[in-house]
């Protein structure tokens, strides 16, 4: 990877934007701050930094601002619904970049406190799929509550969900459980190789 400063033989310092471009091929510098991503983002109102502002933080290429991006809640709130990249006049794959920022945030221990819950949800979701080959809602809820300690969150909706048959108490497996497990193994294997 070529980072600035390197050509002159100085100590190479890669900015977060350069690292992201190298890792996932998304350049923050292509953003001209029109705000169309933010205008369409369903989560923008909940975010501490709007999607276009996350890109702006990276454009500065300053460690303090990069850290603000990695500490932000926005990167964890992103749903990867891809409305932004669909509309972006510069075709910047923002969801892909957000995913990269989440990984970096986790790696550097800069995760937003609320991000932990979101991460716990993702993990619980994947645990369930790994185990049953598909999502098992009750298991997911239980796992999430154990991981986060939010034991009483949303319990009042449970009876209604049960009454409507939305919550199946016993896990329903699928035929290709082994195949799904192999997918997980393969991914973990690849990840190990990359590192």
């Amino acid at each position, binding site marked *: 990877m070529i980072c600035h400063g390197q050509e002159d033989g100085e100590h190479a310092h890669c900015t977060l934007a350069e690292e992201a471009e190298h890792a996932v091929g998304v350049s923050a510098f292509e953003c*001209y*701050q*029109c*705000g*169309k*991503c*933010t*205008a*369409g983002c369903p989560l*923008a*109102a909940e975010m501490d*930094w*709007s999607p*276009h*502002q996350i890109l702006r933080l990276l454009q500065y290429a300053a460690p303090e601002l990069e850290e603000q991006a990695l500490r932000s809640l926005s990167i964890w709130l992103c749903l990867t619904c891809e*409305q932004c990249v669909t*509309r*972006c*006049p*510069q*075709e910047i794959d923002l969801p892909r970049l957000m995913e990269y920022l989440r990984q970096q945030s986790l790696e550097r221990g800069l995760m937003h406190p609320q991000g932990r819950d979101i991460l716990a949800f993702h993990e619980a979701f994947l645990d369930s799929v790994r185990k049953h080959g598909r999502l098992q809602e009750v298991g997911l809820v239980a796992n999430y509550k154990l991981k986060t300690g939010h034991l009483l969150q949303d319990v009042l909706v449970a009876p209604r969900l049960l009454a409507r048959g939305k919550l199946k108490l016993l896990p329903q497996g699928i035929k290709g459980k082994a195949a799904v497990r192999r997918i997980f193994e393969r991914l973990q294997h690849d990840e190990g190789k990359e590192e």
Partner: protein
Amino acid sequence: MARIGVFICHCGENIGSTVDCAAVAKAAGELPGVVHSVDYKYMCSDPGQSMIKDAIRTQKLTGVVVGACSPRMHEPTFRRACNEAGLNPFLCEMANLREHCSWVHEKLPDTTAKAIDLVRILVEKVKRNKPLSSIKVPVTKRALVLGGGIAGIQAALDIAGAGHEVVLVERSPSIGGHMAQLSETFPTLDCSQCILTPRMVEVAQHPNITLYTYSELESLEGFIGNFKATIRKRARGVDEKLCTGCGVCTQKCPNKKIPSEFNEHLGTRPAIYVPFPQAVPNKPVIDRDRCTYYSKGKCQVCAKMCPTKAIRYDQEDELITIDIGAVVAATGFTIKGTDFFPEYGYGQYPNVITGLQFERLASASGPTLGVIRRPSDNEIPENVVFIACAGSRDSAKRLSYCSKICCMYTAKHAMLYKHKVHEGRAHVFYMDIRAGGKMYDEFVRRAIEEDQVNYIRGRVSRVFERNGKMIVKGVDTLLNGQSIEIEADLVVLATAMTAQPDAEATAQRMKISYDADHFLSEAHPKLRPVEMNTAGIFVAGACQAPKDIPETVAQASAAASKVVGLFSRSELAREPVVATVNRTAPPLFSTCVGCFLCETACPYQAIERDDIRGRDGQLIRQVAKVNQGVCQGCGTCVALCRSKAIDLQGFTNEQVFAELLAV
């Protein structure tokens, strides 16, 4: 015996910083045939040129090689210097040490070695150069102007005003172009038609201008000063000589519900129509695709009603061939329609319109007589949203350029709306405001400060319909990215200005170059802004790039002055780089075998047949001959000639092989 002089230029740092010029000069001095070799900081300067002239005189040079920049830059300079010193200018050659060497390589010994190679190649060539003299061709002092918008009108009037004949070709039924559609013009808010129509009338009345409307260029052959243009005059269905423009036919035509192109489909027109009341010429045309007589064989109401019996249903297209000396391409632009925007409703919402449609709504001659009414129910809108950069600067939509005029006309639209609907609210979504120009920024500030147009910095993500209102969902990036939703009655998209849909075909027909967006490419973006790379063809207006009226008019006058400059000469000198068919002593006369493959291959129809006759007038042989006035020196015939009878002057096979062998 050849006596060659070599002159190596440092071009300041341009060549000197990567190539060891002194070493190149020294190496060149040792080449066989080279009697003089020097280097100097700026060969193109006066002292540099004097060095060449002095050397020619004192050293009795028979050829000169200048190792410097591209021959496109300074070949004329050095050839002129040689000529002044008494050396035939075509005995001077340039080795391109800048673009071909110093600019594209690092500072390495190999770079200097390559520079020496380049010089050696040219030395070998110049030893075989022959003195040539330029070819004189006559100039037809008649200009063809393509396109009757404001660019074409201005160019035609300027050329005609200088006393030259002009043929103005416009494909729609009237001249006037997009400017005729506009309501008012920025930054003065003067009425567009009021300033344009006098010019249109002047065109019609000018004795030097021949106007062909409803006509198109079919083909263009030839070269600078000597083009042959074929114009297809489409059948109007009306005898223009008999028609008085009374308008009875258009009033009586029963088929009146055809969307009007002039009103951007916001109004209707009949099947026999003049596009707008001030049209020039004020003679109607029959729209054959929609006329009942052509589809059903019945009706003929216009023919019955016409007081001068001018209707001609069986009129056919006419092809007119004219000799032309110069061409001005002023073929104009088009804009993207609302259907280009999925996020703004694919053109399905009647209350989402383009800027050009808004012009028609605001125009006194428009479908609403100048009252701003929304298309869905003719109500006066209370809330109007203008969206700038609709398509422009959007590389996802493959339009990466700025359309340049939208910032200004959007400010004008918002202002016009506020002037007409005092209680109304006008909002403008923008990314940047580009208002460079005399009184331009002041104009935008006036819209914001005096007319209180609400400028919102951000792009609109979506426009959709809810309870009869258009919901505009955008963002204000100056309010920390706050999401903005506006309930609008009318949404105006400043849609991107694009090249004409057939711009590529038109350019190919005229053999001129165009860019990736199909705008015509000028010869040099700074120094030759109105010339095309094809000599004798000039460009004006938005067919070259998006531009506003003042710029278009300036460019049209510039193109006209180039044409007039060309017409100030009665003949032109051309480079003698043309093909020749050899002639030898009898009984052979030429190595040409008379197969005439060259005749079929020549893209310029420059090959003629030459009869070789004996003294008794009897035909001995027929061989090929090149018309030097027509030949463009492309060399196709040379490559094709089976008996090696054709050669290109200045680039003979002998010269080219010598160059290759010297590598």
